[in-house]
């Protein structure tokens, strides 16, 4: 389905529209307040971009350093070319660890590769422990926001879901009652399940330290209580030095939740005798990322630290929500990342899902030039023959007309013939314009006509 078609359905969902307007405006206001507190915010953004670029442009060496440092601290590194390889590795490790169950930290990358479904097929039950991800999982639903996956749900829906799926009775819709119900369910999992699975916000090449950032503490339960911890990370999550985390964590918390510091920042380096998991596996996932890196314009997308600031300011996302993007990564970042990760073979309508208003670039903590990349990817979609039918010939014909003054002026005269059509009903593809907007009339005298008569 194209974005336009999926969006048309989402736009009619009034509950979704209300939730989105409230949630995004609240997060936007919080973000701008805490960003305004930082006097050197612009310098910090530049530094964040520089750190990510320094890792990405030296990725082969940095990854080998990471492998060495993780191995030296007792972890085991696995390399996965694509989703299937990563899923097979994780399923194999979880099976070997026994128990047939795993608890999960909220992670985008495991959603990207469809890990939960793969584990289920391998006979392993994976439990999401992030409250919003749990809501999504219990509802057999899809996340619709990077940071707030259940942004499309309201409290009454969540109460009903918990009563249906967690055996709760007489729950109120108070947030404290809902979180208490989730806690009753999750505590048992934390104490019983022997395998934890996480993604990674950052991994430090020099030390082998992995970093996960969260708000609830449930992530830390998953990374500390089980005897086996498996982390899946996209290879772009690497930073060269431990000190780089200082910059990245300042950028991330303020950009994502609008907090000065996020409540839980977990850092671990391999395994430690008598403390935490006894086995640590790090799965390094490519899944299209090296192809993105090969595109000199598009590669900036790999700087992304998944803060979701661009979603919260995007006027398109604010109205359609995340499901319309039909991708793990929605919003402006999804529009440049999803098609690239798919080798421009899928999600090809997403680069068009933007007015190029530039709000996303202004808030991006690592200065990804999203509007320019959208324009670049629109060019790739056309060049690879995936533009809507008829568009290419029309655009090329128009291009030729505009290349000569004579044909341009003839076209201007032809535009006045358009005045004979009604202002409210055009034929395809311009019918989409007149569905909600009147057409302007072309006046009898063009500007150049006036100029020739009065000034030339």
């Amino acid at each position, binding site marked *: 389905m194209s974005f*336009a078609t999926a969006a048309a359905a989402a736009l009619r969902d009034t509950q979704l529209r209300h939730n989105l307007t409230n949630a995004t405006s609240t997060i936007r206001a919080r973000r701008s307040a805490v960003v305004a507190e930082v006097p050197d915010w612009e310098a910090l953004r530049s530094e964040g971009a520089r750190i990510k670029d320094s890792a990405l442009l030296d990725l082969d060496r940095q990854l080998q350093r990471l492998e060495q440092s993780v191995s030296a601290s007792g972890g085991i590194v696995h390399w996965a070319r694509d989703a299937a390889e990563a899923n097979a590795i994780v399923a194999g490790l979880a099976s070997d660890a026994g128990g047939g169950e795993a608890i999960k930290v909220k992670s985008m990358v495991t959603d990207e590769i469809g890990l939960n479904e793969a584990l289920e097929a391998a006979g392993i039950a994976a439990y999401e422990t992030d409250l919003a991800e749990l809501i999504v999982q219990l509802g057999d639903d899809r996340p619709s926001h990077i940071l707030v996956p259940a942004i499309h749900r309201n409290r009454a829906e969540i109460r009903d879901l918990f009563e249906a799926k967690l055996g709760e009775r007489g729950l109120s819709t108070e947030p404290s009652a809902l979180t208490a119900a989730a806690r009753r369910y999750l505590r048992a999992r934390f104490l019983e399940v022997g395998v934890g699975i996480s993604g990674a916000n950052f991994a430090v090449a020099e030390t082998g330290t992995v970093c996960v950032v969260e708000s609830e503490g449930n992530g830390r339960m998953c990374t500390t209580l089980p005897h086996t911890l498996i982390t899946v990370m996209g290879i772009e999550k690497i930073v060269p030095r431990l000190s780089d985390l200082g910059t990245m964590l300042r950028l991330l918390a303020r950009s994502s939740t609008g907090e000065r510091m996020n409540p839980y920042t977990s850092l671990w380096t391999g395994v430690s005798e008598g403390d935490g998991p006894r086995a640590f596996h790090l799965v390094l996932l490519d899944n299209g990322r090296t192809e993105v890196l090969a595109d000199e314009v598009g590669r900036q997308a790999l700087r992304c630290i998944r803060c979701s600031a661009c979603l919260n300011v995007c006027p398109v996302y604010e109205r359609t929500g995340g499901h319309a993007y039909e991708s793990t990564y929605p919003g402006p970042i999804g529009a440049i990342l999803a098609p690239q990760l798919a080798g421009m073979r899928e999600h090809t309508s997403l680069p*068009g899902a933007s*007015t190029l208003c530039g709000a996303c670039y202004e808030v991006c903590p690592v200065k990804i030039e999203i509007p320019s990349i959208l*324009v670049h990817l629109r060019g790739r979609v056309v060049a690879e023959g995936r533009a*809507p039918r008829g568009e290419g010939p029309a*655009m090329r014909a128009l291009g030729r007309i*505009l290349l000569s003054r004579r044909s341009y002026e003839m076209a201007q005269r032809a535009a006045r013939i358009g005045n004979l059509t009604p202002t409210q009903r055009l034929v395809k593809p311009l019918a989409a314009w007149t569905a909600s*907007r009147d057409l302007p009339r072309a006046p009898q005298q063009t500007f150049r006509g006036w100029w020739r008569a009065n000034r030339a």
Partner: protein
Amino acid sequence: MRSPWSGRTAPAGPDRLALGRTVRVALFIACFNDTFFPATGRAAVEVLERVGCSVSFPEQQTCCGQLHLNTGYPEEAARLAHRQLRVLEQAEVVVTPSASCAGTMREHYPRLVGEVPPVHEFCSFLVDVLGVEDVGARFPHSVAYHPTCHSLRALRIGDAPLRLLRNVRDIELLELAEADSCCGFGGSFAVKNADTSTAMLTDKVRHILNSGAEVCTAADNSCLMHIGGGLARQRAGARTMHVAEILAAA
């Protein structure tokens, strides 16, 4: 910068005080203004001449290539951009009443054709280059200013249009809520994603009507064509007008 016209009831002649000589300006009108909004071009010429510029119109001009570039046709866009550079190569200063075309040349020409014409958006040229904030206009209507995305975030012309509007006699300038959120035009977006575009337009129209303004103005007729088309369709009782046309009114 303080306008040489400040405190006067009407401007009195060429702005030689500010620059020491008459400024020769080449007007880039933009193809859709030329065809659909010629009044904006006439107004821009009127205002530029009023503040002492000598205006020329290189008649070979057609299109800057924005539509092709933003729709995914960079080769066609580059051909148009090369042509644009040739057409404007004699110009000392190029002024255009289209913020998005100025933005395209400033923002994308470096990557596309490796060169940028000396182009300024109309309001920004008056305020930031000439130092003029009062052009001697009178417009007895209530007006809400919509900062278009390209003027705001690509060109960063800041409050140049507002500075000019504040000095218009008898104007009632009204606050527009969520002014800097996009109106939903976005070129081919308006057609390819018409439903989302319309949802954004609805909110913009609501804010315009809530402001109580009779006229919504901006530095770009492409956004105004979209907003104005929506206002007209809904028989909303408000209309759109390019800033240049308000500044030319007397």
